[in-house]
């Protein structure tokens, strides 16, 4: 009886292994709120290409680790959208990914975003879903009711926070928890602050480890972030930030009464809190303003630097159907689905901000297209040990009370090995 069971199961497996038609294997890590949007894109592609079957594999944590294992085993997915430029470069060096120049037409991608996927005169990543990170989300109704004004400089932001505290409220909500990736929202804060206190050129040096982590300018950026906790501006204090999941960190703004009034996060958070609260109206119940400038010298042209991130599509296996799907991901159709479903931005070259019905996304898209100073997320550019390791845990250690000098020295020691 057991034997027949085994054969039955093996039969099942054989059936499963014999695929029908061409198959494209995609691995992504988009969480529950964003995965359905990607499904819609897949459906649109399959509708246009009925003979190609796209199989989606969602890996929530340690995706670089899984990819490394699969590469070593010789069976990586066909392609994967990801934000890890540093890793992409490593893969390119090892000859594990496909140089897409000449294979894919990049005409549909916003020219300012194409270079991010380029390396060593090859094209290894197609920029598809950008995120603007330097945003503060706030509740305009509450601001109006309490007579708060949107700050345009850092000092105004601090003054506003003081006022909120004096009125008995809590200015900021910060959520650092993210399972294995905990700490990354803090790195966004620090990168944004670096751009505003030390300037874009120093930022580049920092990301490339041309200045050490113990440099006073880096220290200042960390301290400016930590200062928010010291002054008691953060909801739940350090423990609150450390235990709140990033996806829930905007929620305090929409409680009644609000438990916090401002939240620093990229455009994607809109999908999250709209999932948790029904009936919020963009522009009325929530709005955004860019994180203000801090040191005028660091931003000489007066404009607000923009921290950008996003996903690039990297291809592992060069097959016609795979290339076709990669091309489709850069298309206007895909970009539109993503934007409409999630209120996300578009990397489409001719994206029309006015085409966005959602005023928030429109605003962010305009920021993206008009920014004079923009930089890609630092931790995604750094090598894995730092960008997804030491930097993240450094933030956690610092906020949970370890001395900043110790934290920076630890990261620096790891950086010396990694670069």
């Amino acid at each position, binding site marked *: 009886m057991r034997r027949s069971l085994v054969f039955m199961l093996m039969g099942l497996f054989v059936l499963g292994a014999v695929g029908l038609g061409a198959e494209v294997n995609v691995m992504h890590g988009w969480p529950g709120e964003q995965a359905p949007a990607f499904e819609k894109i897949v459906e649109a592609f399959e509708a246009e290409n009925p003979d190609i079957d796209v*199989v989606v594999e969602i890996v929530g944590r340690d995706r670089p680790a899984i990819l490394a294992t699969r590469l070593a085993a010789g069976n990586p997915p066909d392609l994967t959208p990801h934000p890890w430029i540093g890793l992409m470069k490593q893969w390119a060096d090892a000859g594990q990914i496909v140089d897409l120049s000449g294979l894919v037409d990049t005409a549909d991608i916003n020219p300012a975003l194409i270079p991010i996927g380029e390396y060593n005169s090859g094209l290894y990543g197609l920029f598809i879903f950008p995120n603007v990170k330097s945003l503060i989300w706030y509740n305009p109704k509450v601001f109006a009711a309490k007579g708060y004004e949107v700050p345009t400089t850092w000092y105004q932001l601090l003054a506003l926070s003081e006022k909120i505290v004096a009125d008995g409220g809590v200015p900021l909500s910060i959520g650092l928890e993210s399972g294995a990736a905990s700490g990354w929202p803090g790195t966004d804060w620090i990168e944004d602050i670096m751009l505003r206190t030390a300037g874009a050129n120093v930022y580049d040096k920092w990301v490339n480890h041309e200045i050490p982590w113990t440099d006073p300018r880096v220290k200042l950026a960390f301290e400016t972030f930590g200062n928010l906790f010291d002054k008691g501006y953060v909801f739940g204090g350090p423990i609150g930030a450390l235990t709140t999941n990033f996806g829930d960190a905007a929620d305090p703004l929409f409680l009644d009464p609000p438990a916090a009034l401002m939240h620093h996060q990229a455009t994607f958070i809109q999908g999250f809190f709209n999932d948790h609260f029904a009936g919020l109206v963009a522009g009325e119940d929530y709005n955004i303003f860019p994180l203000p400038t801090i040191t005028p010298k660091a931003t000489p042209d007066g404009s607000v630097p923009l921290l950008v991130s996003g996903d690039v599509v990297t291809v592992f296996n060069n097959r016609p159907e795979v290339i076709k799907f990669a091309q489709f991901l850069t298309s206007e159709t895909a970009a539109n689905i993503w934007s409409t479903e999630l209120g996300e931005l578009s990397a489409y070259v001719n994206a029309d901000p006015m085409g966005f019905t959602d005023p928030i996304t429109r605003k962010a898209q305009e920021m993206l297209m008009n920014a004079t100073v923009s930089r890609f997320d630092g931790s995604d550019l750094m090598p894995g040990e730092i960008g997804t390791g030491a930097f993240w845990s450094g933030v956690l250690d610092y906020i949970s009370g370890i001395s900043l000098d110790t934290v920076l020295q630890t990261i620096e020691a790891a950086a010396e090995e990694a670069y």
Partner: protein
Amino acid sequence: MIFKRFIARSPLHLTIFIFAAIWLIPTLGLLITSFRDPANIAGTGWWTVFPKLFSGGQYSLENYIGVLRGEGLARSFLNSLIISVPATAISTFVASFAAFGFAWMHFGGRKVLFMLVVGLMVIPLQMTFIPILPIYSKLKLAGTFPGIWLAHTAYGLPLTTYLVHNFMAGIPKDLFDSASIDGASPLMTFWRIVIPISVPALASVFIFQFLWIWNDLLVALVYLSAKPNVAPVTVTIANLVTNRGQDWELLTAAAFVSMALPLVVFFSLQRYFVRGILAGSVKG
């Protein structure tokens, strides 16, 4: 009279009660939460249901439906079965042959080899992946069910062989004497005499291995991947923990779905389990 005795022994009962409570409450919390809706979970603790424990309206199967259909847990459940049952069967099979060989057959290096087999229990699994995987991919086994069946069998061999051997070594010799007089070959003796006697031990090893494989996360992740058509329940839930970290309504329902089968297996086959572990280990 019985009552008096009960009171006299109340410290005993109290101690036991405290232990039982600590052990039960976390799981109870999980169970109750899996039936509540997200707003309730986020707003109030699960213990607040107790005053109105049996009034309907606050419970729903939403979470379970969501997790089985929406998050693909139903398919994962099937995958877990496809992984666990054959792997456990093969594992028990190979281990019982080996255990018999080590217990009752004479060949050079028998003792040393057996100690090696058992000693290999120390190997941490992570250490083995990278050397093996390239070979696996050449053999086209990576990402396949037979691939993971072999892997689980091998990883479980040290312990399963040890347990079965423990039992088989204790079989009285006279049982074999009558068989060899009849001229039976080792294979026939094994099949006709030893296996039937060893059923309790084999059953317990089967359960042990089944639970281990069903609950495994790492081996599945590495050898199979997280593709929905092969991912077992553990992989799906681990993903949920990362992606929906604070969506307790989903996590609790999913966790309970993953626990259901092992608990059923355990409860219905308890006696084999306990008997099997002990066979031999208590004599010492």
